[in-house]
């Protein structure tokens, strides 16, 4: 059983994700470089880590979404394989069309690194380790986390309970106060079997003893147990 953490040239949370999987969740993890064309055969789950995959030039995630490895990741998704995209990883999944919508620049034009309160709100096998409607606290660190999708898409996401996480702090229109995200969306569920999650906050930064809190662990644990479960079924 192997969690693959994809390394794009400007990924800078890839090591953190590996540490979270190995040290925090006691799983096995492997870095795979974006220039590969295939995932290793042992791959049971994939994490697209945070960072600035290609410098975030042009649009965050745009160039990474067109890298060699992406078709293989798409096939993995189509086959029901669990995938989590964190921060830049979320941006990449949107750019690649694996998840709907896009992430725009934060409404105030600034980078934000701070803890935010989130409501776990969607249905996905990767969210089962959280209580339904549980509120958790995770750090964000992004300049472009302002989620956008057209109204039909948003309505669909709501109807299908595919909004994985929402920011608790909202503005008058119900958008995320921190960055302007439509309907305060901080994370989205996708994939044929709800097997993909993209989110702006960083669960891997709340997964070890030294972090003093472990609100990120349930997501990582679910990722591991779901891939384990798939392997046996």
């Amino acid at each position: 059983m192997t969690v693959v953490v994809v390394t794009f040239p400007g990924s800078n949370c890839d090591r953190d994700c590996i540490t979270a999987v190995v040290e925090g969740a006691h799983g096995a993890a492997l870095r795979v470089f974006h220039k590969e064309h295939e995932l290793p055969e042992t791959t049971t789950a994939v994490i697209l880590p945070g960072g600035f995959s290609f410098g975030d030039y042009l649009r965050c995630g745009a160039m990474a979404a067109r890298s060699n490895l992406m078709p293989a990741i798409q096939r993995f998704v189509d086959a029901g394989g669990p995938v989590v995209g964190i921060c830049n990883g979320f941006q990449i999944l949107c750019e690649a069309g694996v998840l709907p919508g896009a992430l725009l620049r934060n409404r105030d034009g600034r980078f934000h690194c701070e803890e935010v309160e989130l409501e776990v709100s969607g249905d996905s096998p990767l969210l089962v380790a959280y209580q339904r409607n549980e509120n958790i606290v995770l750090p964000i660190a992004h300049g472009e986390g302002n989620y956008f999708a057209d109204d039909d898409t948003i309505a669909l996401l709501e109807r299908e309970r595919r909004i994985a996480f929402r920011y608790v702090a909202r503005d008058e229109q119900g958008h995320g106060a921190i960055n302007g995200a439509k309907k305060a969306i901080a994370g989205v569920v996708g994939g044929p079997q709800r097997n993909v999650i993209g989110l702006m906050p960083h669960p891997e930064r709340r997964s070890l003893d030294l972090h003093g809190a472990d609100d990120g662990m349930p997501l990582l644990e679910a990722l591991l147990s779901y891939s384990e479960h798939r392997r046996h079924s």
Partner: protein
Amino acid sequence: MSKSALNKLKDTDLTTSEHGQAVGLSLDEFERAVKLIGRVPNKVELGCIGAMWSEHCSYKSSRVHLKRLPSAGPRVLVGPGENAGVVDVEPGNPQGWAVAFKVESHNHPSYIEPYQGAATGVGGILRDVFTMGARPIAAMNLLRFGRVAHPKTPSLVDGVVRGIGGYGNCFGVPTVYSSAEFDAAYDGNVLVNAFALGVLRKDRIWKGNASGVGNPVMYVGAKTGRDGIHGATMASDSFSAGKESERPTVQVGDPFKEKLLVEACLELFERGAELLVGIQDMGAAGLTSSLFEMASRAGSGVVIDLDQVPARETGMTAYELMLSESQERMVLVAQAGKDDDVRAIFHKWDLDCTTIGTVSDDGVVRLRKDGVEVCVLPATPLADEAPRYERPFTAPARPEPLTRVDVQALKKNPIQIVLDVLLSPSTAPKTWIYKQYDREVGAGTLMDGTHAAAALVRIPETQIAVALALCCNSRQCSLDPHEGAVRAVVEGVARISAVGAVAVGVTDCLNYGSPLVPEQMGQLAAGVDGIAHACRVLEVPVVSGNVSLYNQTDDQSVLPTPAVGVVGVVDDLATVAPAMPLKAGDVLIRIGAPPTSLEGSFALWGKVGRKGALPVLDLAATSILCGFVRDLRRGGHVLDARPTLLGGLAQCLFDFARCADLSARATLPVDEDFFASFLGEERLCFVVAVDNQGVFDVQRRCADAGIASAVLGALGVSSSFRLQDSGGDVVFDRPFQKLVDDAEAVVPDLIASGRRRSA
């Protein structure tokens, strides 16, 4: 003479002393150069000499003083002289971990273009660190801006903060500590000092050596453009009106490219000496300083074909290629025949990597362009025999001590005095700044400057943590440059002690005015002595640093600002409680003897003129105090600790309360003066937060150690922040949340006011 006459010359044209002036060489220096090489230099050679002998690269005014800094110690693996200093973290383990760190200034560029200036400052210091073989895991910065009311201040703050964040966040280093203060003395010269620390195995340290005749010299990273030509000479000159047209093209940073560079270099380092001989980044004075320094360190020479240097623009001359300060470039010397293996690593990371020459044995740097030899200069003499000046200096005059009248005037309105301290931009919380920095990338940040006295970052995959702080009380330095510098070191050591770490090394960035003004040179000399003295007594070596002079515009020079970065180690991070949340009822205990006067305190700054005689700090006692608090902090009942610094005890208590999100109340013990105890800064104490059951234990340990302690009050007892005098009378009492909101608003309001003001 202006640069234009020099611009007209071709690469190989011979120069005169007047051209020398255009590259920053005095008449004497030009003649010295002629004597050294036995002939008149051509334009390329003159450019190289000008850069190498600039203040920035040669330290010609400061070198005689820097020698006095203690740089040896059992943990020092690499001292000053290399790109960064390296200190042992695991002395018992021959393959164990070490840390490489350094602080560097980017003051002049940041004033001209705040975003790019600050960004490239971060880029430069990161390269200095990873060049040693280290993976950067933490960054800090020390910023000094002009008055809040100065029209340029808001946009400078905004640009600098965005620039630091823009670079560090993308590169992927957590920026864990930031010191930002404001004073009219920085109106025309901001200070942007950037610090970086990386981790490496002590048996895998790399240096900038060009050894091994016949080995290929390779160029990696970004292409060379016409950026920042003469940057090093610019940093060695003061600003004045009318010089704007001589500004070099601004260097633009590309943090993404730097990220590729660090990954590629670390992969190369993994392969070790099988492929690599030596490596150096191109910093100030670009290709010139890296080639000359690498050759001179190895006692070798190099033959370089400048046509092989990847150029971003067409028609670049040898002069331009040698003096460009384009960012994100490195020079390395590979093992003969291994060019292709090296290239493969860089290509994997989509980077240019070109062989530009070979190592020779004649000690000469030879440059060819278009088949013509354009430069033949001896490496070692140029690097080692740079001019060195014992500039005349005068010992700084000691200001008058405070008079009764000064102090009485202050005491008339104690509430306002305390408010002035708590709500000053220099002491106000820097949350607005910190939020723009990714402080957690790497997932190893246990504490950062937003909530703790110092930052604490884990060395990946270990139970070891590194503590860091970057400090300077510039106002105290302006009153007493020696004592102020002593206190900058003490502040750093106190901060890292407060998070439970042992200080293992220091890096310093000496920011002063013009070395040609004897008073300002005197400040530098005294500052060096102060750092040297404190480091000796506290037994912590200075392993790297930087000097930034000419921080003056016309006649206004900055406050003397020796920024001191202190690095400490926590062997086992299980021993420091992970940022345990404080709770209502936790008790605040002051440890150490309180100040008895207001000399040198922030409360009086700007109110009494340049007055205040800082007493000499008892370093031995302070050292014992720091060690004592460090031991207290490790395990037991002490949940958090902070030294009393800028703004004294009042500020310290407020920071405690603000970070804990709980109000605080404090009453002085009998026979203490409200003003001296709450606002004095002439002596250092600590405040510790202790859970209720631990109070007796902590007091007993203090008594056993012969250290003064006093229970001042507690957190969260009411909704007001209250300071009471020895008699129990309430002197200062404000709704806590309002005070916090007001303090938090100071910096964002400053930025917003800039928008309004430029209307």
